[in-house]
């Protein structure tokens, strides 16, 4: 690593400050160009015909009538995919366009390009696809057990990860068991999938798209199109939220195929219903847990079996299984661990990345168990957690020694120490009662409950993945002023990465004027905007490039550069991680852990089953808050998504078919559902990370859900072993 004798410059717009977002003005003026806003004079509109069946054999596809429709320029099937008709993040198991079999309702079968979205839609209606409907596999647990049709060669287990630590037969004085369920959650970003593919004169294609990882898209597109990498160029369009749901392909290959086939630019935009079919969801889970402890609450062992429903295609199921397994006991020091986690293929909608993946499902179960353990031992829920809290130096169930701060106890103490919201008294504002403004009673039957939870998440990519970011930083004098530019392929999805990168450059180089160029594939990969990793990895790469520029500057100040341009391209990676041992799950699989704790306070109308989350306070260690305002935004946003999973969000499937693909039927929290949060941000530096920082985005999503449910349990005395908790679960009917 480059060293420099100069110290980082302290500034009001650098590291540790919260300067204005560079995209702020454009966003509030309506001028920020999202991928759905793109336009080309000659463009056609693409549309996708999807399977109406969760599982069926295709007996024939007739496109003749669609092609005959005036205004239709292309109708493409699997036969028109020039390269490998298989893609996927971890396993290339998903057809670009279905061939002989469809494995989920909504699977793309045919794509068309037409002069108007309506023409495209009408063309789809004229495509005739013959199906022989097959019996779908819809239960992950029985799929793992080998029941039902084999959906992919090799069987229906995508991945099984066992974790074995200590004595597999450990016994304990106090034993608590439970079976828990987590429903299928949707990322529900506001800007549906969209992009514009423009054919190029060199036989290639330029794709403007909202995504989380340009290069992994590119890798999959070139394989499908059978083109060299330099012929498929991607540029990031404005991204209307992601939360994991844009890590897999949606329109990417289809739009490029249509553009190359027609020689015309092709725009594709999903509508909301199609979006529910067009991206992966959070894995629904069934989790069986057994915790053994001494009478004083000290954990002796944890045994667990976790079943994750991966749906029809693998997507990132493998990594999700790895997370759920390795983080399966939570942020606790447990001497004896036996965890088995399976990810299954079924004919349900494909599941993959969503904020906190794997860790979210496990946390609901292990935190529910910790509350049961507290009750069994007659302990306070915080006390039992503190008694078992991991810390720096703790050995994880994988054998990995935690080598940076792990302030689990402090986080718990902090949320406990926060003042409780005042008890409701006198004539309450109706809007503050469970049920909102329509709550016209005076709060009879309303019971308050308090619940706690703490969670753990691995930060960055794990298990031996070569996780790196490429950046280019240039410094020159423009108009008498030193100015820096940063070029990366890292995807700004709203989290504020571009602000953070500017801040790093300002602090490192002492220049005020920093421009972050559009993200594209003319530079090397920056990895995914996921796993809470971009500030760590791309931020780390920018820092490294700046340090090199500082070395090159020598004694000069940036303003003294004259005509010189200092230009550094850096490929930066974090410490390597290891694969897990396939039988014992041992290995230094993760580079960093993130922790957050929540205390939820709820008012529950026990007669009607209505819940009002009165407070959802949080403490999180972020190592170093590069941008404190953005950190708070991440914690608020992650906590809200956890609240949504706790009390309202679930994609309901019936025989593999989504029954609520709309924002009327799939509810996400409104401003009225989310309380203002009191947040403590700890900055305990991780000595191995740039600036000591710790990834921020995911940990608050993890502990939010179990904290809210614990509070509802405290108010109602109900077991509540499934999320989301519905009114009927509270009233017990």
């Amino acid at each position, binding site marked *: 690593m480059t060293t420099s004798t100069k110290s980082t410059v302290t500034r009001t717009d650098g590291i540790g400050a919260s300067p204005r977002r560079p995209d702020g003005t454009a966003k509030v003026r309506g001028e920020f160009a999202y991928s759905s806003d793109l336009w080309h004079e000659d463009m056609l509109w693409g549309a996708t015909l999807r399977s109406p069946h969760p599982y069926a054999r295709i007996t024939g596809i007739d496109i003749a009538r669609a092609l005959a429709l005036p205004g239709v320029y292309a109708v493409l099937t699997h036969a028109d995919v020039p390269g490998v008709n298989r893609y996927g993040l971890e396993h290339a198991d998903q057809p670009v366009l279905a061939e002989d079999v469809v494995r989920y309702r909504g699977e793309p079968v045919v794509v068309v390009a037409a002069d108007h979205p309506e023409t495209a839609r009408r063309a789809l209606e004229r495509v005739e696809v013959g199906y022989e409907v097959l019996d779908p596999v819809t239960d992950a647990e029985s799929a793992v057990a080998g029941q039902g049709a084999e959906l992919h060669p090799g069987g229906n287990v995508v991945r099984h990860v066992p974790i074995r630590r200590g004595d597999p037969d450990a016994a304990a004085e106090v034993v608590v068991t439970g079976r828990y369920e987590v429903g299928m959650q949707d990322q529900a970003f506001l800007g549906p999938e969209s992009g514009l593919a423009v054919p190029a004169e060199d036989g290639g294609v330029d794709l403007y798209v909202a995504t989380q990882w340009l290069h992994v898209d590119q890798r999959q597109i070139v394989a499908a199109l059978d083109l060299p990498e330099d012929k498929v160029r991607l540029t990031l369009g404005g991204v209307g939220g992601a939360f994991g749901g844009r890590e897999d392909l949606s329109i990417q290959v289809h739009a490029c195929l249509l553009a190359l086939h027609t020689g015309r630019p092709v725009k594709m935009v999903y509508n909301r219903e199609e979006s529910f079919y067009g991206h992966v969801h959070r894995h629904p889970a069934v989790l069986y847990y057994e915790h053994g402890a001494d009478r004083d609450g000290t954990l002796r062992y944890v045994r667990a079996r976790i079943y994750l429903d991966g749906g029809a295609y693998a997507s990132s199921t493998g990594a999700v299984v790895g997370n759920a397994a390795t983080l399966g006991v939570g942020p606790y020091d447990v001497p004896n661990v036996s965890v088995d986690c399976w990810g299954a293929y079924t004919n349900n909608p494909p599941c993959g990345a969503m904020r906190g993946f794997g860790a979210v499902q496990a946390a609901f179960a292990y935190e529910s168990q910790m509350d049961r353990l507290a009750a069994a031992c007659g302990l306070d829920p915080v006390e039992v957690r503190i008694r078992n809290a991991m810390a720096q130096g703790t050995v994880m169930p994988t054998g990995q020694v935690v080598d940076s701060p792990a302030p689990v106890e402090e986080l718990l103490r902090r949320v406990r120490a926060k003042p409780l919201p005042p008890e409701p008294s006198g004539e309450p504002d109706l809007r503050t009662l469970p049920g909102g403004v329509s709550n016209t009673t005076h709060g009879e039957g309303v019971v308050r409950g308090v619940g706690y939870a703490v969670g753990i998440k691995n930060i960055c990519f794990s298990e031996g993945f070569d996780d790196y970011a490429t950046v280019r930083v240039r410094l020159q004098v423009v108009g008498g002023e030193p100015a820096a530019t940063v070029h990366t392929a890292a995807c700004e999805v709203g989290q504020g990465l571009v602000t953070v990168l500017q801040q790093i450059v300002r602090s490192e180089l002492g220049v005020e004027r920093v421009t972050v160029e559009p993200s594209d594939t003319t530079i090397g990969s920056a990895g995914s905007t996921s796993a809470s990793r971009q500030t760590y990895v791309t931020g780390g790469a920018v820092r490294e490039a700046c340090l090199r520029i500082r070395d090159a500057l020598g004694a000069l100040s940036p303003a003294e550069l004259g005509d010189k341009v200092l230009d550094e391209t850096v490929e930066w990676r974090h410490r390597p991680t290891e694969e897990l041992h396939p039988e014992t799950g041992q290995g230094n699989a993760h580079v960093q852990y993130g922790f957050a704790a929540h205390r939820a306070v709820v008012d529950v109308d026990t007669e009607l089953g209505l819940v009002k989350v009165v407070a959802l306070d949080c403490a999180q260690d972020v190592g170093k808050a590069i941008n404190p305002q953005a950190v708070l935004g991440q914690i608020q946003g992650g906590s809200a998504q956890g609240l949504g999973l706790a009390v309202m969000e679930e994609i309901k499937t019936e025989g593999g078919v989504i029954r609520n693909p709309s924002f009327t039927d799939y509810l996400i929290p409104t401003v009225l559902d989310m309380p203002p949060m009191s947040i403590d941000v700890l900055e305990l530096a991780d000595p191995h990370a740039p600036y000591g920082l710790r990834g921020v985005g995911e940990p608050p999503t993890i502990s939010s859900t179990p904290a809210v449910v614990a509070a509802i349990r405290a108010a109602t005395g109900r077991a509540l072993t499934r999320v989301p908790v*519905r009114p009927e679960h509270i009233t017990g009917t």
Partner: protein
Amino acid sequence: MIPFDYRRAGDAETAVAAVAGNPGAAFLGGGTNLVDHMKLGVAEPDLLVDVTRLPFDSVDPLPGGGLRIGAGVRNSDLAADERVRTRYPVLAEALLSGASGQLRNLATTGGNLLQRTRCGYFQDVTTPCNKRRPGEGCSAREGYHRYHAILGASPHCVAVHPSDLAVALTALDAVVRVRGPRDGHGERAIPAAELHRLPGEHPEWDTVLGHGDLITAVDLPPLPMAARSRYRKVRDRASYAFALVSVAAAVELTGDVIGDVRIALGGVAHKPWRATLAEAALRGRPPDRAEFRAAAEAELADAQPLRDNRFKVPMARNTIVSVLAGLTGEEPR
């Protein structure tokens, strides 16, 4: 959305004639439901007659103390009307519990009453639905039916009516004024409680209106007891969601007993459900929770919940009890 003809109506008579003369025509009010259904392919009218500029946009006093609400009065304006807020609070509360500010600025009184069910199968044209295509079968009965009916359903349909406004109007004994092709220059009056119908053999008919019948106004009777009225809506999130169960009620105490009472339920049936059995059980009885509960149970005795909406029965009971307790000043337990 399929193409259609569009006309803007200059007066009610022409509007009625235009729709009556074309079996594929429909009236267009605020559009919040119809335009949505046209996008989904649930509705495919070949002519829309825009009635939003007809002179039915005011709330006027009626001789004798009632109010006449023009069919074109928007939900937000009606909810904000001082006379409504003070004399019929149940109505204002019902309106404000529905949708969002932006939608209430579009939605009209008449259109709100005529909105169609939110049943997911009704809205999904790829599934069988007797309401959309009579004779196809009901997908909800054995499907995803958490939101569906517990009262008055038929083997052919278990959908519920989604309007909050209609529930309040039913409790208030409001009267819907209709001008149809057979009415000449006149109008006919239909009690709000009789506007919507139970599905029976014909779930495709939501109301008793015929093709070309245009709602022109809703009359609120002078109902002094309505000054003490409430609407409560139980739903999956605090705002901007349809009801699992809702209750509109008004109570008049005479001495120590209930002199008169009006109760209507939403989210439980194909129509706003006037709880006449509960009302009868309560008249002359003391206003306490045991009485409220017994009355609610009497009303719900014939409930026939589906596999996944059994919870609605106790939820409806508890909501009735809760609303009545609140209205009568019953102290918390």
